[in-house]
């Protein structure tokens, strides 16, 4: 594999790792019954090609540390299945209508079947981690421990976010946002893939704290960009309905910035809007008006620059995390994911 060049190069490499993982996932899910009420639903989201950031990060890190795709593909399948389980349940919790360019699972099949399919994805995610070749039992056990810890942290983060919305919590600082996404997003999007890739590739000899640090910065840059794309991205590329975060009253960096800088009457209107969103009702303003307020107060520019600062930290922590890793296309690919997180449009 040659080093990725530019955004297109990164996306080509992501697509390659993503395809490897999707093929393994399809082999894993094929032939299971019943089709109609369960496994057709279980296979739906995984078949809608996502970016594949999680398995790509895991597989590339494993290879950079001297391991092979065969050794790490089970873990890549596990994180993709868990990711899809989260998506199914998130879409229900958020009342989302679109996922990866198509209607969400609960809109296609109804709430009860979608919840059940999400449960099945979460349980199926554990299977590829069972003790057995090609991993040693010691490494396999550590991967499973990491997986369970990651699931717990992600669910804790999700609970915090839902709670903030339900209670209409508005006095938040950027550090609150970062603490939230460190659990809700970073752990399963970047920290776990990096830690487990290094764990498998080095047979458990790589120090993992540096991976956690790098993964947090990288995941935070990813989430900030994701939140921005929800407001100003291309719906066709982004795959979700634009302004969905505003309709749901999601606590993003832009919203926190606006709440801190808005004039008193504007702030009152925004708080009332968020209270209505928590009840699933239309607020006193349209989401487009809220976006307009954010633009006027420089909240989008603030988030973009804030993300650049986080990405700079990611860049530096990358060198610490990969200091023992010899140069290779896999190492280069992981490094180029940092600017990719800031520039991606999907």
């Amino acid at each position: 594999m040659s080093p990725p060049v530019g955004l297109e190069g990164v996306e080509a490499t992501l697509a390659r790792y993503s395809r490897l993982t999707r093929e393994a996932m399809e082999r894993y899910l094929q032939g299971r019954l019943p089709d109609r009420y369960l496994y057709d639903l279980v296979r739906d989201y995984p078949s809608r090609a996502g970016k594949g950031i999680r398995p790509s990060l895991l597989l590339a890190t494993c290879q950079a540390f001297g391991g092979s795709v065969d050794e790490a593909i089970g873990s890549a399948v596990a994180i993709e299945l868990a990711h899809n389980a989260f998506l199914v349940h998130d879409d229900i919790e958020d009342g989302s209508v679109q996922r990866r360019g198509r209607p969400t699972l609960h809109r296609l099949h109804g709430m009860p079947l979608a919840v059940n399919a999400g449960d099945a994805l979460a349980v199926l995610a554990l299977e590829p981690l069972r003790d057995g070749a090609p991993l040693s039992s010691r490494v396999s056990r550590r991967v499973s421990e990491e997986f369970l810890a990651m699931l717990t942290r992600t669910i804790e983060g999700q609970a915090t976010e839902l709670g903030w919305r339900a209670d209409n919590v508005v006095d938040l600082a950027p550090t609150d946002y970062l603490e939230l996404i460190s659990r809700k997003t970073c752990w399963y999007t970047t920290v776990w893939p990096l830690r487990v890739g290094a764990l498998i590739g080095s047979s458990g000899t790589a120090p993992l704290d540096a991976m956690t640090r790098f993964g947090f910065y990288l995941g935070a840059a990813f989430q900030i960009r994701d939140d921005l794309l929800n407001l100003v991205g291309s719906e066709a590329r982004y795959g979700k309905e634009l302004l969905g975060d505003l309709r749901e009253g999601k606590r993003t960096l832009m919203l926190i910035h606006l709440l801190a800088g808005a004039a008193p009457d504007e702030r009152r209107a925004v708080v009332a809007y968020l209270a209505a969103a928590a009840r699933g009702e239309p607020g006193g303003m349209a989401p487009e008006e809220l976006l307009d307020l954010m633009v006027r107060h420089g909240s989008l520019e603030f988030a973009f620059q804030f993300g650049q600062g986080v990405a700079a930290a990611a860049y530096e922590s990358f060198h610490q995390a990969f200091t023992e890793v010899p140069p290779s296309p896999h190492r280069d690919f992981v490094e180029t994911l940092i600017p990719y997180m800031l520039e991606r449009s999907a």
Partner: protein
Amino acid sequence: MSGPRDNGQAEPRPPGGFGPFQALSTFTDVQRRGLEAASQVIEGFLAGLGALQPPADPGAAAGNGQEPGFAQVRATMARALDLYSDLVRRSFEGYADLVEQSLRVRGVGLHGADDGQGELTVQGVAGAQAAGTVWLHNTTDRSVSAVLHLTGLTAHDGRVAPGKAASFEPATVRIAPGASVAARLALPLDGVAPGLYRGHVLADGLPDAALPIRLLVTGAAPGQP
């Protein structure tokens, strides 16, 4: 690839010679805020993890800064040790499985209701009926059919309670490989004097199967027929 480097805000630095605040002079205020806030959160998070996590794996490195070549040697050694350790473990597991298999008696066993014990105890009032449950466990890999019957039951003084009066439901038992089936025993106690009797439940078609049975017959309570 554009990004921090191409923005001219954070040039590449050699490994080991960096700190997250090294390039702050080239940052905007907001970028600096982002970097500082993220550093604050992650360092607090790591400090919390340190308090929760178990001691590091003995095979794991104490820290960074070693040569890439050394890290690869360390990983290769860990792989070799893991391979050897798994081979030893699997050998022992295989041996344990063989021993367990050889010790396991394969056949059809008769057991009492309560528990799988080696004796069935039933009791009843003279002139009434005693009842109990017999379990048949088939640990073979073929289906088995058997007809249960009860031998005569003998007391210590030589008195006999006839076993022929007993009935089993179902009369003929069919058991799939690896399955268990229960049969209900009913024994009329007409003409049987109070006392303790002993005998066996046997199974026609299963010469090695026998379940000892203990029958306790009590006298009728005063005022009862």
